[in-house]
């Protein structure tokens, strides 16, 4: 029981991590809390579902396509809706993404109804038995892919010109401009990468959870807590905090009852905010990798 709870938490943690990285990066680099991040995750899940149901493409294989599609969505939203209001106020971007979230979720309700759908693969129910502990292949693959994606993003941020430009813009927008970087374009790329990662999380989630237009909203609470736990803008922090959060949630659910999941999460969140607002691992430095 103890070992199984631990393994379940660990496997879920990877997906939480990927669901969070994009959100955290967007917040860290641009000071935007993207409330539509959950809707992006949901869109990713639906795209993966559509490709699996209509074209028979396995969700793990269609993931790059889903990510590319979501990148375009993120880029377009940033350029058309968010860049024009970025200068004025923190609140306006928050209100904007809130409106976007309402809009997108309802579009999917209108297109797909609120019915619950699922992606079934031939290996869905198979699991690897290690002693008494069962490790579902799908969950294991999802967790490993999550780590791989986080690693890839880390390399992009630290080793490529685009990554350096994103970090530079996060550190000092005006200085970055003087170095020949166009902040608006970098913001577009950052939002695109954030959305692409949400799409990846949605792809992974489609293999694990039932899919409905409300899928993203069930993630967004966890994403918030993990972002703050890991330190805003920190990729490695988000991954580590994803595991911590999933473990806490999985233990709270099995020892206190599912009803207490949210209270535990909220309590944790509040304590971190008040005691260590920079997160468990973070320094107060936005855009850190």
């Amino acid at each position: 029981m103890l070992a199984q709870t631990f393994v379940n938490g660990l496997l879920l943690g990877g997906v939480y991590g990927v669901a969070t990285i994009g959100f955290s990066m967007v917040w860290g680099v641009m000071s935007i809390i993207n409330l539509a991040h959950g809707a992006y995750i949901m869109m990713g899940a639906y795209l993966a579902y559509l490709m699996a149901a209509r074209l028979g493409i396995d969700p793990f294989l269609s993931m790059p396509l889903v990510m590319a599609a979501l990148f375009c969505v993120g880029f377009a939203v940033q350029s058309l809706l968010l860049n024009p209001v970025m200068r004025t106020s923190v609140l306006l971007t928050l209100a904007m993404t809130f409106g976007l979230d309402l809009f997108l979720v309802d579009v999917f309700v209108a297109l797909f109804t609120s019915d619950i759908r699922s992606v079934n693969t031939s290996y869905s129910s198979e699991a690897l038995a290690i002693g008494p502990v069962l490790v579902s292949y799908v969950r294991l693959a999802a967790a490993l892919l999550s780590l791989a994606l986080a690693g890839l993003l880390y390399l992009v941020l630290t080793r490529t010109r685009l990554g350096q430009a994103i970090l530079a813009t996060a550190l000092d927008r005006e200085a970055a401009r003087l170095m020949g970087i166009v902040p608006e374009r970098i913001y577009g790329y950052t939002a695109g990468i954030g959305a692409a990662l949400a799409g990846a999380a949605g792809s992974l989630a489609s293999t694990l959870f039932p899919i409905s237009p409300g899928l993203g909203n069930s993630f967004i609470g966890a994403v918030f807590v993990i972002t703050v736990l890991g330190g805003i803008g920190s990729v490695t922090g988000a991954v580590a905090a994803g595991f911590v959060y999933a473990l806490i949630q999985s233990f709270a659910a099995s020892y206190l009852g599912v009803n207490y999941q949210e209270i535990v999460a909220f309590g944790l969140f509040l304590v971190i905010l008040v005691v260590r607002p920079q997160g468990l691992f973070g320094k107060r430095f936005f855009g850190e990798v």
Partner: protein
Amino acid sequence: MSDTRQLVLAAVLLAAALAAPAFVGNYWLRVLTTVFMFGVVAQGLNVIVGFAGYHAFGNSVFFGIGAYAAGVGMTLGLPVWIAVPVAVLVATLVAAILGWPLLRLRGHYFAIATVALNAAATEAIINIGGVTGGAQGLPLPFSALPPTTLYRIIYFAMLAALVLATGVVFWLSRSRLGYALRALRDSEDGAEVMGVDTVRAKILAWMISAAMTGAVGGLWAYWLTFIEVGTAFDVSISVRGYIMMLLGGMGTVIGPVIGAALFQLVGDAIWSHFSGIHNLLLGALVMAVVLMVPRGLLDSLSRLRPPARRGRRPAEA
């Protein structure tokens, strides 16, 4: 818009609202009651967001607390005219207690914390069960009054709440506390240096905001006679209030009232034709407001006049 103009506008609106029940049917009475209710929610947000600059996205928590305090009070035998003040008291008290840890958070953090608070309150009410009715919801005792009289009473009670709330905001706009709040909105450290007790001012603002929201929450429970956590703690209550405040102009005295009236009346006309896609339209409206009138209609209107005559402009947050 200058203070005198706002005052004239407010007086005209009030006269119209007082006369309305004599001319309108039940449908419009209900619509107008809803307008007043959201007007108060928007004013409550105006105090904490527009004045203090603290983005309480989850202020609906006080609506739910007010509804439940009044509901539980009434099932335990309190008459409504005691139950609603009790609701106000409970909401204010919760704000006072939670204000100390939560208002230390700035910007985004506070916004999220209030949303999380709302979620946790929902869970707490369900888990407490017993007297709150838990997940099943809470039926309130029926009133002995005939429905038409009852709905008129609720209409005037909501209107009174709105007038009171607007009066408080008017007082706030020229009081010491109001200046302290606007100072800390523009620069918290700066206000501190100038001798403003920022902690006290913030907590007071949140308490005022909670009192307003809790009052209409309590009245709403009395109006509906059946409440459940999903609707009482619905985040969309505060989100609507937010849009109304933005639409009318935050930090102004009657902006939120005008925003509430416009939003609710236009909304009612639109919603009834598109029942399945409420949120789609609501979301599109939020985005349109943010893109086109980020400072609110009052400000946009006053910009049409030569700038020399413009009064104090609500500063951005």
